[in-house]
């Protein structure tokens, strides 16, 4: 009888332990989910902050570009046009006095050419007309050719994609890709002390891949991430913002002999 009572008590205790475990399990589930959600919202907030920072950097870069173009127009083209205006007034006066100077008039044509060059360069900086007319691939090829021609750096251009002129992206995306490429090449020229550069285009698993290979000092993803968040890293921030807008990914690989920077842009509509 006593044993039976003990066993019955054990059953009661066992059931209470079961009950305790179930309550603990449910409370754990609720708390665990709360903690995960809290961490998730924190992570989202940090990401949102980073994105704002990136877009601010991108906007600042654009502002600076506009300022530079405005300064260019104001300081270079405006004085030229002023000189030209004065020269034309002088020529009118000479014509009235029947003392027209053909040589001086011809020199003014050079001034017009200079002004036209200045305007062309400024508009090219706003939107590269070459890119608009010929597309991304031809523009990149031309840019690499210009590096060789100006003897800045021996550079190679290899295109293994089936796209010959324009890449499978809309104009705005091509412009963004072009600016990313220019920023990457500028960074390579400025910071790597390389003696050779190769730009390779390929298509891999529905991604348009642009690989920049050089023999200079490489940089790793972690280092780039560090430099992006230091004050003043505007170029990198703007580059990251453009990559983000494109929905692309950029990878930095540091090698002993060669280092690479790979830009992977998903192809949405082929």
């Amino acid at each position: 009888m006593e044993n039976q009572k003990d066993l019955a008590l054990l059953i009661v205790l066992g059931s209470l332990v079961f009950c305790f475990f179930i309550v603990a399990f449910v409370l754990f589930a609720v708390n665990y989910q709360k903690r995960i959600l809290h961490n998730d919202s924190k992570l989202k907030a940090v990401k949102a902050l980073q994105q704002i920072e990136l877009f601010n950097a991108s906007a600042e870069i654009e502002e600076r570009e506009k300022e530079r173009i405005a300064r260019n127009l104001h300081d270079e083209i405006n004085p030229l046009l002023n000189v030209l205006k004065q020269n034309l007034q002088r020529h009118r006066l000479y014509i009235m006095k029947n003392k027209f100077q053909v040589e001086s008039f011809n020199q003014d044509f050079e001034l017009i050419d200079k002004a036209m060059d200045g305007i062309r360069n400024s508009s090219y900086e706003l939107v590269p007309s070459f890119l608009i007319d010929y597309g991304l691939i031809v523009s990149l090829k031309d840019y690499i050719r210009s590096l060789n021609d100006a003897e800045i750096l021996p550079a190679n251009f290899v295109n293994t994609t089936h796209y010959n002129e324009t890449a499978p992206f809309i104009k705005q995306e091509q412009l963004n890709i072009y600016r990313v490429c220019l920023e990457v090449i500028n960074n390579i020229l400025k910071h790597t002390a390389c003696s050779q550069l190769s730009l390779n285009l390929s298509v891999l698993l529905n991604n348009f891949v642009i690989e920049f290979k050089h023999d200079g000092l490489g940089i790793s993803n972690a280092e780039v991430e560090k430099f992006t968040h230091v004050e003043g890293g505007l170029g990198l921030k703007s580059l990251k913002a453009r990559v983000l807008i494109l929905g692309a990914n950029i990878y930095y690989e540091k090698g002993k002999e060669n280092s690479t920077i790979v830009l992977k842009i998903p192809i949405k509509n082929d």
Partner: protein
Amino acid sequence: MSAKDIYISFSHLSSLSVLIPIIISLIKLSAFNKQLKALFIYLILNLSNDVIGYVLFINNTSTTFSFEIFTILQGFIVVYIYSNQFKFSHRTMLSIQLLMLCLFLFIHFISPTSSDFSNALVDLIICFFGVRYFTQIFINLQVPVLTNYYFFWINTALLFYFGTTFLFSLFENFIRSGDETLAFFTWSIQLISNITHNFLLSIGIWKIKKT
């Protein structure tokens, strides 16, 4: 107040407590989907079982058969509810129900006078589904705020009740044959967990939103 008096008080409270989720269900009936309609049937079944059990008890008739039928139906409905939740195919759900029926028949064959094992089997199945639901939440994290989601409360209610009463179900006959005071005490615990179960179900049904 003796243990028997306490047991009887809890027994009345327990029988009445099932009315709370039923009343809330009637208020929210227009927002019910298939799963909740099954839950409503489950509640009606609980109420009917209490009423039939009481009638059989005052007529000095064995309740074993009616309890077995109730247990089988309860098992089927709960499997249906969880199958809906886990989006099981019709075939999977029917297979589980068929397997359960076979086990019931087997248990009935080896122990025809007791419903202990079939009760314990239902308890085990429900505990398994209840734990699976929580582990799924951990993996998928699809529910934004757990305590605002109706099924969290329903699952907690089922897991709590069937988990707590598992050992009682398994040793029901043993408890019945032992010390009376202790038996009333254990049944009182069972009744308290049933009241809690009904209360949690009520919260769950109350949390249902019209879609």
